[in-house]
């Protein structure tokens, strides 16, 4: 069988034949075909099975509104379900399969559902599968899902690439039909930056499907020459294969460009690109969608929209049948008969519901006025149609036209409501359009070619004027207005067979009536109850006829009944395209410290801290558990010296004449008197009196400070300071800039820290305890002249320094430190050992600074200076935050020293039931202390400061553990701080 339904003419390239497969059968088509047109040319009318009843279905439309002809394209991991054959561009080697049948397409075992249809009406599942409740998830739903449904996923990772991007224009023209081309042409000639986007691979819209003329050219020729003119303009960007799927705020549109879907292989390039288009103005020229008329068995393969029949015949040179009948309520239907006759295809009859039509049938074609089609004979294809007068007409294809609906979708994406136009029997865009949008052509209800061309140019001219551009003079395209009257006629009442409204969801006229009977009065309820208008086509051909049926039942008008809400996307957007390139480890950026390569070489295990990767510990050979490594790192540091990369801490450069006063206000404790060359620990409150962050700030010069923040809060604190200086105290001379990235910073801690640093810091700098005491800071040089900053601060509780060098030297610096430390057995330590040592010292971190704890809770009440004002000072005095029974941060030891502790455990008094009422606080941080030889913890408990020595129960209900713990000081090691001052 080779293209026996191929006819002369069309816009296909017969010099380029293409081979493809449908359900394993080899077929031929041409460049310029869609899969649907090629299937029709090959005589393949049956292309799928319906969603619910598994009824045989064919190709219904020639565009993106297709409800029926959904196929699975490609194979293996590339397999894509639910693609519309009517928009799938044919390429050599394409493989397609039909969907939703068990057994072959011709003999679908699930077609038994169709016989059970009396039971499977709207709401069937809701009414039937109610008991027992437990069966729904385990039995009913899986069975129903297996029986119904569309295509299947490959269950493999999508091997294609996707990308996103941003475009900008003065004027976005959506749709390249007559109105769109006319608008783009005028705008392009004006010099404005224009983007013309169209979902089709060939621009021209209906011009390519009709035989109407523009001047002395055919519509298709005019479209081609206009596209060529536009393509030559540098200020115009043509985007075929691009669906503008959503209208968002402020003139921003979402668009999906299919870049390689028409090729056999993507060749490593993105298959689709999701664009965000920023437009100053938009002309929506989305055209119109033809709607069917519902009658008995109107879903049979061979029933096709009349406009689609013309598209296949005129554009694709593919005949949908050998002997075609037309059923219409408007003049367009008659044009179908003429186009068919012109191509030499037999026209069986024209059936018009109207008593009178202003048009005539082609010579020799019988016409039936005031007549309706009530039924169709034939299952997998049409054999004949039965008319309301009882007559049977032999035919293999029925072209149906129920009029046209303007594509108002994008006009409604911001809750705009369409309005009913009586003379068109259709909704047209309302007044509340998205900002910057105008509508032109058939999308607005200008249904004839002449009107659409004129409206496109007129709207463009208006928009250009609004943008302050001059409207170019010169000829504008014109055409005759073709006959286009019609009448409101939605469904054939005398049909006794099921009449289909929504082909994709198998919703019939009866279902809509039933839903109304059962009390679903709103269209939104109708939609949910019957599934009308759901799934991939979103009811583009179904909604308006169904509304008409509902209006009929309720005795209301269609505008009173209203439409469901239109939401993006206009047509389906693959999840892959929405994800773009943000997949796997590229989902978000990664931040690396300058010692990362070195740490990796040491075999470090990394932990994610926000976007940072930090070395968590450095396993050594023979260590089988992370604790082995961490204990060794802690012991090594406390015994001799350890080195830790602390680059990730936030560093903020603060300068200005008022910097000291600024810090005095943002920190709870006093900073006004901090001397140059000294560092101070600072506690920052939020306005509400809760602790925001802590860190150290060093005074490098009279007007120059560097503040450190916790890693997690670096951005928040910077933002806070920026707010303070710009909004709270704009009169202050304070300037801040992040210096986090500028410096690589290493902590050198342990009794031998000074010895190691003396080998690194150039000898002219005195590091003795007197020359550079605890909490000193200063500019130094290291390794023979490299500028560095040195801070004598300690998080570990040991004699410790932090040395900062410009990041370019960060890699060299860690190597230098390790080399210098070799004679002292210096150990690199990671965040886990860092954490153990800070818990041993009782230093709070994010676990304790939760945003819900106060300075008082943390035992730092005295740090909130009452001698000055600071952010949070006033609200920290609220009664609720100063409860005598309030929480206090203390230490905890397990009574049975062999037991471990769990963060998150809650404290209850011994002997009391573990209930919320008896909750006294919680454990915030735990560690195993190698120094003490048992587990320790930090936590908040009521009146903790007075309860040292008391034993309570740490209850971890999640892990089912109750542990007796003793309340102790939070300072487990060296509480007097002798080591760090040594």
């Amino acid at each position, binding site marked *: 069988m080779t293209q026996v339904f191929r006819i002369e003419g069309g816009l296909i390239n017969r010099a380029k034949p293409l081979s493809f497969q449908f359900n394993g059968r080899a077929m031929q088509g041409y460049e310029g075909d869609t899969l649907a047109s090629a299937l029709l040319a090959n005589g393949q009318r049956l292309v799928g099975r319906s969603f619910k009843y598994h009824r045989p279905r064919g190709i219904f439309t020639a565009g993106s509104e297709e409800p029926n002809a959904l196929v699975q394209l490609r194979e293996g991991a590339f397999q894509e379900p639910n693609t519309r054959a009517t928009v799938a561009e044919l390429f050599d080697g394409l493989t397609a399969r039909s969907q939703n049948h068990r057994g072959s397409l011709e003999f679908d075992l699930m077609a038994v559902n169709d016989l059970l249809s009396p039971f499977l009406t709207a709401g069937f599942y809701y009414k039937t599968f109610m008991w027992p409740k437990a069966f729904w998830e385990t039995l009913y739903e899986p069975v129903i899902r297996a029986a119904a449904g569309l295509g299947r996923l490959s269950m493999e990772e999508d091997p294609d690439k996707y*990308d996103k991007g941003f475009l900008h224009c003065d004027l976005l023209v959506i749709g390249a039909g007559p109105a769109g081309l006319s608008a783009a042409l005028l705008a392009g000639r004006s010099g404005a930056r224009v983007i013309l986007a169209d979902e089709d691979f060939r621009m021209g819209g209906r011009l390519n499907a009709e035989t109407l003329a523009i001047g002395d050219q055919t519509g298709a020729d005019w479209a081609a020459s206009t596209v060529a003119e536009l393509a030559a303009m540098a200020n115009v960007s043509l985007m075929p294969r691009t669906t503008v799927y959503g209208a968002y705020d402020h003139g921003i549109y979402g668009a999906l460009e299919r870049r390689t879907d028409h090729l056999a292989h993507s060749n490593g390039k993105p298959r689709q690109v999701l664009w965000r288009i920023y437009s100053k103005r938009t002309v929506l020229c989305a055209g119109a969608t033809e709607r069917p008329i519902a009658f008995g068995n109107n879903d049979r393969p061979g029933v096709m929209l009349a406009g689609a029949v013309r598209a296949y015949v005129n554009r694709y040179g593919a005949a949908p049948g050998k002997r075609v009948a037309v059923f219409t309520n408007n003049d367009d239907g008659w044009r179908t008969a003429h186009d068919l006759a012109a191509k030499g295809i037999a026209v069986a009859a024209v059936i018009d519901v109207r008593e009178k039509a202003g048009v005539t049938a082609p010579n020799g074609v019988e016409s039936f006025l005031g007549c309706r089609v009530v039924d169709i004979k034939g299952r997998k294809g049409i054999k004949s149609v039965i008319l309301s007068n009882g007559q049977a007409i032999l035919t293999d294809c029925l072209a149906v036209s129920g009029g046209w609906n303007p594509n108002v979708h994008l006009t409604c994406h911001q809750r705009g409501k369409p309005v009913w136009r009586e003379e068109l029997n259709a909704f047209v865009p309302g007044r509340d359009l998205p900002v910057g949008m105008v509508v032109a052509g058939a999308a607005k209800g200008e249904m004839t070619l002449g009107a659409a061309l004129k409206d496109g140019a007129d709207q463009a001219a208006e928009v250009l004027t609004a943008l302050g551009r001059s409207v170019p003079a010169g000829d504008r395209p014109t055409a005759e207005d073709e006959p286009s009257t019609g009448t409101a006629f939605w469904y054939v009442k005398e049909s006794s067979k099921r009449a289909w409204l929504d082909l994709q969801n198998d919703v019939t006229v009866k279902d809509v009536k039933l839903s109304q009977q059962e009390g679903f009065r709103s269209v939104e309820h109708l939609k949910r109850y019957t599934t009308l208008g759901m799934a991939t086509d979103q009811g583009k051909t179904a909604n308006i006829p169904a509304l008409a049926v509902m209006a009929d039942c309720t005795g209301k008008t269609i505008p009173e009944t209203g439409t469901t809400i239109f939401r993006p996307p206009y047509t389906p957007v693959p999840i892959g395209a929405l994800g773009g390139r943000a997949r796997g480890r590229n989902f978000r*950026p990664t931040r690396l410290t300058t010692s990362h390569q070195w740490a990796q070489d040491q075999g470090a295990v990394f932990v994610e801290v926000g976007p940072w990767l930090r070395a968590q510990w450095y396993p050594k050979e023979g260590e089988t558990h992370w604790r082995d490594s961490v204990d060794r790192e802690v012991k090594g540091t406390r015994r001799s010296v350890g080195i830790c990369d602390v680059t990730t801490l936030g560093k903020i450069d603060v300068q*200005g004449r008022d910097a000291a006063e600024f810090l005095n206000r943002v920190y709870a404790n006093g900073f006004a008197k901090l001397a140059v060359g000294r560092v101070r620990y600072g506690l920052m409150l939020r306005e509400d009196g809760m602790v925001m962050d802590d860190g150290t700030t060093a005074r490098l010069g009279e007007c120059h400070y560097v503040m450190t923040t916790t890693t997690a809060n670096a951005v928040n604190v910077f933002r806070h300071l920026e707010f303070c200086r710009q909004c709270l105290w704009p009169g202050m001379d304070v300037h801040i*800039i992040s210096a986090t*990235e500028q410096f690589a910073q290493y902590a050198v801690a342990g009794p031998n820290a000074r010895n190691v640093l003396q080998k690194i810091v150039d000898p002219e700098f005195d590091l003795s305890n007197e020359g550079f005491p605890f909490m000193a800071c200063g500019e130094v040089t290291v390794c023979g002249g490299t500028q560095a900053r040195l801070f004598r601060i300690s998080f570990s509780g040991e004699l410790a320094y932090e040395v900062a060098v410009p*990041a370019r030297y960060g890699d*060299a610096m860690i190597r230098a430190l390790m080399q210098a430390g070799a004679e002292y057995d210096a150990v690199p330590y990671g965040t886990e050992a860092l954490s153990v040592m800070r818990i041993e010292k009782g230093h709070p971190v994010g676990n304790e600074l939760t945003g819900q704890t106060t300075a008082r809770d943390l035992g730092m009440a005295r740090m909130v200076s009452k001698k000055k004002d600071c952010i949070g000072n006033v609200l920290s005095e609220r009664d609720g935050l100063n409860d005598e029974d309030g929480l206090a941060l203390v230490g905890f030891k397990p009574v049975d020293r062999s037991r471990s502790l769990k963060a998150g455990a809650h404290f209850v008094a011994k002997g009391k039931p573990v209930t919320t009422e008896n909750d006294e606080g919680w454990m915030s941080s735990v560690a195993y202390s190698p120094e003490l030889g048992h587990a320790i913890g930090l936590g908040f408990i009521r009146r903790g400061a007075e309860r040292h020595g008391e034993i309570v129960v740490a209850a971890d209900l999640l892990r089912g553990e109750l542990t007796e713990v003793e309340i102790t000081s939070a300072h487990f090691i060296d509480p007097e701080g002798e080591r760090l001052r040594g």
Partner: protein
Amino acid sequence: MADIILKAKSPLDGFSRDWPGITLREVTGRALVSVSIPHGGEAALGQKLSQVYGTIIPAVGESTASPVDNAHLLGLARDQFFILFDEGGQAPLAAVSAKLAEVAYLTDQSDSWAMLHISGPNSRAALARICLLDLHPDHFQTGQVARTVMEHLGVIILRDGADSFLLLSARSSAQSFLHAVTVSAENVT
């Protein structure tokens, strides 16, 4: 410890690659210092700038240039601009400090940013995949500068020629940024 000399590393190890119509290079040898204008000190700084650099304070979004150290001044905020200049014998901060210390607050940013230069007729198409700003030459002209976000990362972009852009992004995430730019180049060529 005289035997250890610290060797500098650039954030992207001197990255360099070409695609049809796109040239992408790491920029090295350029120093960057932020200049904050003291309250009420605009006139004094302006005067000093014209003396030592022969140029003016750049407006936000604009840049000015000076033959001194081949400097570009990038206007980034109402009270802040960056000086981008050729590294010389001096440390970056010292180099600017010698000229402006009395009239501005200076912070060395040379090691804070990875610098990439993208040029060629396809460079704009590549940037359109990650940059939400309108880079049309009528809209973003040579010499204009902007702070923006690309693939979640903060970026400073300077147009230094018809199809030529300097991109600055944080050093710690430089590899992610480079990946974003190279994927874009790959995807459009």
